[in-house]
């Protein structure tokens, strides 16, 4: 019992430390917000006319038929992927600066270091997601979700953020420099584009379409879009949750093994 309470206490200490970092050096938090917001502006205003015409008349056109209603959920999800990058970087910085060896020689719960980073990353990312959502609303995004649907959407996004944060923590542990820690997750950031984030997969060529339909981000985006704008969800809901849980578990195990492998520097 005391082991558990120590683990929780140590994790909270580590979480406080990471939130202090985020508060004091908001540039990392901002970069998590800025990329999706720029994407939102670019795609809505520069390509939105053409893309919106392509979507109009399909079952994807909901709300008042504005393209931003289709796009916003996909972009909100992008905020979650860029949040993962900041977890990888902050873990890697701690590894290279040697402070992790200090923690290892203290009677601190083994899990606390990573748990603190992941929990801090999730909180930071959820704040960014809230900001991106606000910007989307300012740009004309009109979600018609009920409070329950909002809650479900927030829950799904938290789960997704967690599912990305654990593998990201492992990436931070196995990369040698913060630069590579920030580059390695880059392909993951592009995955939503190869799903239904910006355009429906039906508009893609066959091979890509197959990939888009079966990759993990698509059911998450579809569920989110359904919750927020009322498009059909179908089987996407349970599929999204299953993907998130599987990724969380795999990422957690990977990170734990990488951390247990011990000191490298």
């Amino acid at each position, binding site marked *: 019992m005391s082991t558990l309470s120590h683990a929780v206490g140590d994790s909270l200490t580590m979480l406080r430390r990471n939130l202090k970092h985020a508060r004091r050096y908001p540039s990392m938090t901002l970069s998590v917000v800025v990329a999706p917001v720029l994407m939102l502006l670019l795609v809505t205003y520069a390509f939105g006319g053409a893309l919106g015409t392509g979507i109009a008349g399909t079952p994807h056109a909901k709300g008042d038929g504005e393209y931003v209603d289709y796009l916003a959920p996909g972009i909100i999800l992008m905020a979650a992927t860029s949040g993962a990058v900041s977890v990888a970087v902050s873990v890697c910085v701690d590894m290279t600066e040697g402070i992790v060896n200090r923690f290892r020689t203290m009677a601190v719960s083994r899990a606390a270091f990573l748990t603190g980073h992941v929990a801090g990353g999730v909180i930071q990312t959820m704040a960014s997601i809230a900001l991106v959502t606000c910007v989307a609303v300012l740009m004309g995004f009109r979600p018609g979700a009920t409070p329950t649907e909002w809650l479900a959407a927030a829950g799904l996004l938290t789960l997704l953020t967690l599912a990305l944060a654990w593998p990201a923590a492992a990436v931070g542990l196995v990369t040698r420099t913060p630069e590579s820690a920030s580059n390695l997750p880059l392909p993951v950031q592009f995955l939503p584009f190869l799903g239904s984030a910006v355009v429906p997969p039906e508009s893609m060529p066959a091979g890509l379409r197959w990939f888009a339909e079966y990759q993990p981000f698509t059911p998450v985006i579809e569920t989110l879009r359904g919750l927020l704008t009322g498009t059909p969800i179908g089987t996407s809901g349970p599929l999204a949750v299953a993907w998130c849980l599987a990724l969380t578990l795999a990422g957690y195990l990977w990170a734990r093994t990488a951390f247990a492998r*011990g000191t490298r520097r």
Partner: protein
Amino acid sequence: MTAIQATGLRKSYGEKTVLDGIDLHIPEGTVFALLGANGAGKTTTVQILSTLLPADAGALRVAGHDVAHDPDGVRAAIGVTGQFAAVDNLLTAEENLLLMADLHRLPRREGRRRATGLLHRFELAEAAGKPAGAFSGGMRRKLDLAMTLMGDPRVLFLDEPTTGLDPRSRRTVWDIVRGLVADDGVTVLLTTQYLEEADRLADRIAVLDHGRIVAEGTAGELKGRMPGGHIRLRFGDPGQLACAAALFDGIGSPDTEALTLRIPGDGTVPTLRAVLDALEGASVEAQTLTLHTPDLDDVFLALTGRSGPQAAGVR
């Protein structure tokens, strides 16, 4: 009581043997120095004893706990300051110390009290509110050591604690280490490449070379093993030197270029008097007389076949 006990400690990375059977016995309340060049295995020894690395073989006990079977027991009793300052650059000096207080689960008030005390002791009080990332190397090392002391460790591992410090900060660190041992009975295992540091701080010194301890003892004992003490006489002209050389034939070694004569001896007053009496009896006049007592550099040279570790290592 024994604070650190190691028997047959071995470690290798693949083919490369780093530690080849190390035995350590360090009584409580003493300072023990591991002296050696880079790559001798000093840091690996510290990392293994402080639970960072597993040993390949050997029985290890630190502060009464078995390192392999009760690492958390060891961790609760030790403090480690490694070669690279392990501070949180984004937090201020004070926040760094309070982070340690939280991780040691100290009550808030006690944590603040210790942090304030350590900031003063390490002359960091003025910089307490500045982020550690902005600190100079010396300040970071001091903050690092202060963080280590927040947990009130019984056994302290210091891996090259003064490497890269200016003379003033080095002295501060030495004073603090002495204080910890004298006032609180802390046991210190220190690694260093500075012979002077080992000489000044350590009760006992072990010379580590290629993963083996090649000599161990007090600074005095190690120096005593050196036959290097001698008296050096310098003469005004070759004639005087020749006379003196004849006088100490078979004992002294003359150097006709420098006009000096080296006579082995320990530099005690009776020895000196005997030498001077002999010279005066033969009416030979020496210009100067110098004494050379062996230092740890000689010891290191003799034991490892290399000059002092500073010269041998690249740092």
